[in-house]
C-alpha cells in the first residue's frame, strides 16, 4: 500500500521527474503535471494527499492556483516551490494558505520532513471531516427520531 498520493505541479520536466523519483522511492504514489490545466484534470481524477506547487507556471501563477485549491480542495496541504526565494514570496504563499514553502535548489531532507508533516495534516483534516460527518448524521438521526415521537 502506498504511503500517500502526491501531485507535483512543475513545468521543468527534469525537476519534476527527479522529484517524483525521490518521492516514489519513499513509497508514495506520485503524479506530475507540467501546468495548471493538467493539474486540474489530475485533481478531478484522483484523490491527492499533498500537492507540491511551483511558484511560476506557464499558464498561470502558483499563488492564484493556491486560491483555487483552497476553494475546491481545502483538505490538500500545498507546499510551494520556488526558485525566487525571498521572504516576500514566503509571506505571500503562507498568507494565501500554503502549508509550507520550499526554496530551490531543494534540500531532500527538508523536503521529506515537510512532506511527512503535510501528510499528517491531511490525515488529521480528513479525520475531523469524517467525525463532523458522523456527528451531523448522529444529530440528524436523533432529530428524525424526535420528529417521529411528536
Amino acid at each position, binding site marked *: 500500500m502506498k504511503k500517500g498520493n502526491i501531485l507535483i505541479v512543475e513545468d521543468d520536466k527534469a525537476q519534476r521527474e*527527479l522529484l517524483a523519483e*525521490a518521492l516514489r522511492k519513499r513509497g508514495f504514489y506520485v503524479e506530475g503535471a507540467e501546468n495548471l490545466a493538467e493539474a486540474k484534470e489530475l485533481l478531478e481524477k484522483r484523490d491527492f494527499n499533498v500537492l507540491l506547487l511551483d511558484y511560476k507556471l506557464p499558464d498561470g501563477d502558483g499563488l492564484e492556483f493556491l486560491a483555487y485549491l483552497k476553494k475546491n480542495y481545502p483538505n490538500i496541504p500545498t507546499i510551494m516551490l520556488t526558485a525566487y*526565494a525571498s521572504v516576500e514570496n514566503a509571506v505571500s504563499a503562507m498568507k494565501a494558505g500554503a502549508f509550507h514553502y520550499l526554496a530551490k*535548489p531543494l534540500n531532500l531532507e527538508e523536503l521529506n520532513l515537510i512532506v511527512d508533516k503535510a501528510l499528517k495534516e491531511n490525515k488529521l483534516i480528513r479525520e475531523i471531516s469524517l467525525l463532523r460527518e458522523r456527528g451531523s448524521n448522529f444529530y440528524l438521526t436523533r432529530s428524525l427520531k424526535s420528529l417521529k415521537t411528536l
Partner: protein
Amino acid sequence: MLQWLEDILLFQKEIKIKADVFKAEDFLLEAQLFFAGLNKKGVNFYVESKVEEVCGDRFWLKKALENLLKNAFEAVKEGGTIRVSLYKEGENFVLEVFDDGEPLPSSSDKLFEPFFTTKREGFGLGLYLVKKVAEAHGGVVKIIPQTEGKTFQLIWSCKPIV
C-alpha cells in the same frame, strides 16, 4: 536568496566540519535537482556513484559541488557534457566534475584564490569556497586538463568528527 549574497555570506563564514555518513544517492539527486534548475542550454548531465555512502559534512560538500557545477555549466557550450562521479580511492573519497567546455585558462594556478575570476559576472568566490571545503575536510582540490575540457577533483578522507 540572491546568488551573490549567498556567495558573500558563505565566503565570510568559518567552515566548521560536522562530518556524518549519508547516502550517495541522495547527495547526487540533490545535485541533479540543482543542475536541472540551472540547465537552460540543453547540457547533457550525467551522475554516477561507485559508493553507497559518503562521509563528510553534507552541507559544505553540497555547496562545493554546486560551485563546481556552476563553474562547469558556465564553461560548456549548448549541448555540451558535464559528468559527476563519486568514488573511493583507498581511504579517500573523490568527487569528480568533468566538463567538455573551455580548457583551463593560462592563469589556472590562481583559480582558487578569492576574487579571482575570468568571467564578466560573479565575485570569483566559487572555487575558493571549494578549496576551503576541501581543506576543512583535510583534503585537496585538483584540476586535470583533458583533451577536451577539464576535470575538477575534490578529494577528502572520511574522518567523522563528533
